[in-house]
């Protein structure tokens, strides 16, 4: 400090020192208030905090896995509902099929949001995310399959030719019985 001052005194008239010297109590002018401990927690209880952290990460991972697997239940339920709805096109089956399509789609859109709470540099979220994606894609596939079984997908030749007008004829012929 003296040294600095000497430097200052040598070239400048005044200066404000922004550097925090609180970590160096010996060199401080003002004493810490009583009861205030300047020791950082990790420094003073590093073992227990690490343990806690690990537990949280585990918990997050676990939760992430749970979330990742949650579409499976959905999938099963959807499957059951679809089976119940039957293969004919009516309001119920259409509703179910569209919800079966909509749910995975919206879930896929919000993958980031769903896993945000579990974001942690220590938690490996890739696998849960992949599982989540896979399950939702599975749900989507189920929905599409249902759509197809309902006959709403243009997968047959008939879907592409059903409004095709008859071809033109090259020749033209007319006639019949002679007029009496």
């Amino acid at each position: 400090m003296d040294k600095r001052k000497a430097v200052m005194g040598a070239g400048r008239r005044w200066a404000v020192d922004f550097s925090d010297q609180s970590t160096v109590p010996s060199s401080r002018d003002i004493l810490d208030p009583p009861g205030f401990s300047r020791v950082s927690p990790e420094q003073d209880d590093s073992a227990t905090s690490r343990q806690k952290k690990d537990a949280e990460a585990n918990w997050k991972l676990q939760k992430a896995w749970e979330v990742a697997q949650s579409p499976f239940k959905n999938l099963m339920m959807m499957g059951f509902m679809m089976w119940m709805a039957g293969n004919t096109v009516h309001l119920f089956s259409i509703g179910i099929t569209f919800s079966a399509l909509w749910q995975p789609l919206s879930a896929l859109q919000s993958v980031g949001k769903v896993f945000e709470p579990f974001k942690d540099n220590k938690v490996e979220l890739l696998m849960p995310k992949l599982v989540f994606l896979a399950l939702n894609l599975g749900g989507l596939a189920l929905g599409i399959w249902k759509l197809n079984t309902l006959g709403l997908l243009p997968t047959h030749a008939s879907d592409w030719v059903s409004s095709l007008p008859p071809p033109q004829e090259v020749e033209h012929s007319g006639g019949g019985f002679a007029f009496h």
Partner: protein
Amino acid sequence: MAMALRLYLLLIVFLSSAIVSFSLYEDQVGLMDWHQRYIGKVKHAVFHTQKTGRKRVIVSTEENVVASLDLRHGEIFWRHVLGTKDAIDGVDIALGKYVITLSSEGSMLRAWNLPDGQLVWETSLHSAQHSKSLLSVPVNLKFDKDYPILVFGGGYLHAVSPIDGEVLWKKDFTAEGFEVKRVLQPLESSIVYVLGFLHSSEAVFYQIDSKSGEVVAEKSKAFPGGFSGEISSVSNDKVVVLDSTRSILVTISFVDGEISFQKTLISSLVEDSGEAEILSPLLSNMLAVKVNKRTIFVRVGDQGKLEAVDSLSDETAMSDSLPVADDQVAFASVHHEGSKIHLTVKLVDDLDTVLLRESIQMDQHRGRVDRVFINNYIKTDRSNGFRALIVMEDHSLLLLQQGAIVWSREEGLASVTDVTTAELPVEKDGVSVAKVEHTLVDWLKGHILKLKGSLLLASPEDVVAIQEMRMKSSGRSKLTRDHNGFRKLFIALTRAGKLFALHTGDGRIVWSTLLNSPACARPSGISLYQWQVPHHHAMDENPSVLVVGRCGSDSSSPGVLSFVDVYTGKEISSSDIGHSVVQVMPLPLFTDSMEQRLHLIADTDGHVHLYPKTPEALGIFQREFQNVYWYNVEGDDGIIRGHGMKSSCAGETADEYYFTTRELWTVVFPSESEKIISTLTRKPNEVVHTQAKVSTDQDVLYKYVSRNLLFVATVSPKGAGEIGSVTPEESALVVYLIDTVTGRILHHLSHQGCQGPVHAVFSENWVVYHYFNLRAHKYEVTVVEIYDQSRAENKNVWKLVLGKHNLTAPISSYSRPEMFTKSQSYFFPQSVKTIAVTSTAKGITSKQLLIGTIGDQILALDKRFVDPRRTLNPSQAEKEEGIIPLTDSLPIIPQSYITHSLKVEGLRGIVTAPAKLESTTHVFAYGVDLFYTRLAPSKTYDSLTDDFSYALLLITIVALVAAIYITWALSEKKELSEKWR
């Protein structure tokens, strides 16, 4: 029990709602349909002489109708349409209370009750040969109980009791060469005189006792010159005939049983010479002879001496003589002068005494007067008044009385031969819709009334008002085009060569025009085509129709083309084409810049002529020259010949619109085993929506849709007669599908033990035909659907998605399309007169068959019932698709008669035309009657029904909005009070 009944009722209700029926409610009758009753061209008319029903006239017509008409208004009191083979030969009144009709060449005698037309008795008379028939009903009204009705027909003279129709006696005149010419029954005499010619050269005269039928006396005398056959009986003991050279009139008198001839040269009566003709009117002691287009009245003196007393120009129609007061006899004659007709009633004895002379303005489009029937009545001042019933050249029937037309009936419409449709003019800006429609208040009032009706609040008066309102609903009969295409014109060509335009809204005649030709007085109409249908110039061009006619009845007589403006009914032009007309082929795909359609007309020499004769049309035709073909069916020889265009005859003649053809193919049916009874093609203007037919398992079948397909039905020559005339082993029915470009037989199907007549309908890729199965003793209906095998490989979805397919490429008949058919047969419980199919604007709506049944009604049958995919136990998916379980016979659901309670008497044809609205089709049926209705085969899925209550909708919306506001306000209030608490 009651429970079971209720359940049963419920079941019935459920079932009836399950079957799609197209029936009407009672109050919907007449909303979309109309029905017009006609009788046809009048042949005979008998006025009532009795006091009972003085105001009526009994007529018989060429459409085999016997009817009683009201003389005041021309309405039909009663009417009976005899069958097409039951032509009426004579009609008279017997005993003052029976109408006697003789029909079927004198083999059927019927008596109808005069006031109500009920059949009193019917007697079938024995007939051995074809001959003219004669009916003689005793005129004596007081003592005629004993006098029989004398009927000659089929070689026999029958005496029939007028009371019960019992045959009293019959006399055989079937001797070879003998022809009965007159049967006379003098008043208060028990002797019947029968005069006939033997081999046209010997007059034979019989006197027969009218009680027993015994021949009292028989005389014969040969006439060396021979008779021509025309005869006029002038009195009870004299007839006048023409000799075989038609230059001598022979008076045959048979006084006291002695025959004597008296010859008079016609040239001695009048200066004109030439072939004479005895006219039909029966005048007492006088006859009318037509020589050189002049009508000469010849008086027959007491001694059989003839003298010419008067002559008239040729265009004169005459009535039979009519007894008027004081033993005088009068007759009427009508002749034309400019646009007027002159009716003259004169005494037969004294042609200078004119009892009546009237001039009446007559519509030019009625042509000449054809027949006149007169009747007298006593006026209040005790003088004689006359009324005349006249039949015009266009078959219309008019009553003239006191110098005016009292009523007229357009009887030409009973013999419609061809029908086409035409659009009405587009609504121009000048015409304000609001003026034609109701004002807003009226509109609202109407809707409130409707609302009352639909909420069952209407009083009986309201119901009547509602019905009335619906009947004359605003736009129904306007003469402009409407958005839905419900208003249209049906153009009908009648046998008389008159063209009528009928409005679909109310069936009124918008215009009518009689065909004219510079070459001949009155060409007969053959057929009708749409000549010009403007789309691009719809605002400033009028559509027109082409009427093909012919001068004369022979097929080689020259044709006449007439172009008629559809909006105005004016004949735009008429031309003699100088060649015969055997066939007319519209080329619907080719139109010139004026949107006139190209037509080819084939003549008897096998040449074709192109119309319109413009260089532009020629250019268009030259481009397609190689691709135009024609075929003709020679029914008698059992040959179908196909021709292609060969060359223009421009080199030989100056006419470059004239082409020769070459024969390309012939299909010869062996005459000993097959006879063509029916041919049919698709309607050229039919619209097909798609070429694919998707089955339940998503499989695709490609329809074979071709305009060049001909359906031909043949039967064994033995089986061509009436049903039941052959055993099942002797008769077979074979149907063919022939490509008319190449002559290839694409498919044939043989029905053993079946017989015609075949009624068929051909639409899209299917044919449905109706015939008689001799083994099952039932009528059958078979459906044949034709599919294209060569396109069936187009099943790869990716190719179809990318458009790599040949499904829309033009196809040629020379590419030898492979095809397969599916067919199925069903019993049909009824005999059929004609079959048609509905047609819609885009061809999307499902089709209905319109079956004209033997009862002159029209049955609408869903095409679903005649679907070859029907099986006994359709799967769930098939059921969902609408496939009906297979049954052995087609159902007739009483509600699906589109004619509901009406009959289209003498039904001959059904014409369908699309409306602009895809769901709806116009149906027009013609016969003796006319019937029109609109049909929606799949219900009106694209529009609200007429009786949809807009007011109810409006009120509901208003009520809902009000409810929302009120509840919103209430909830606000409540919330506020909650907050203050």
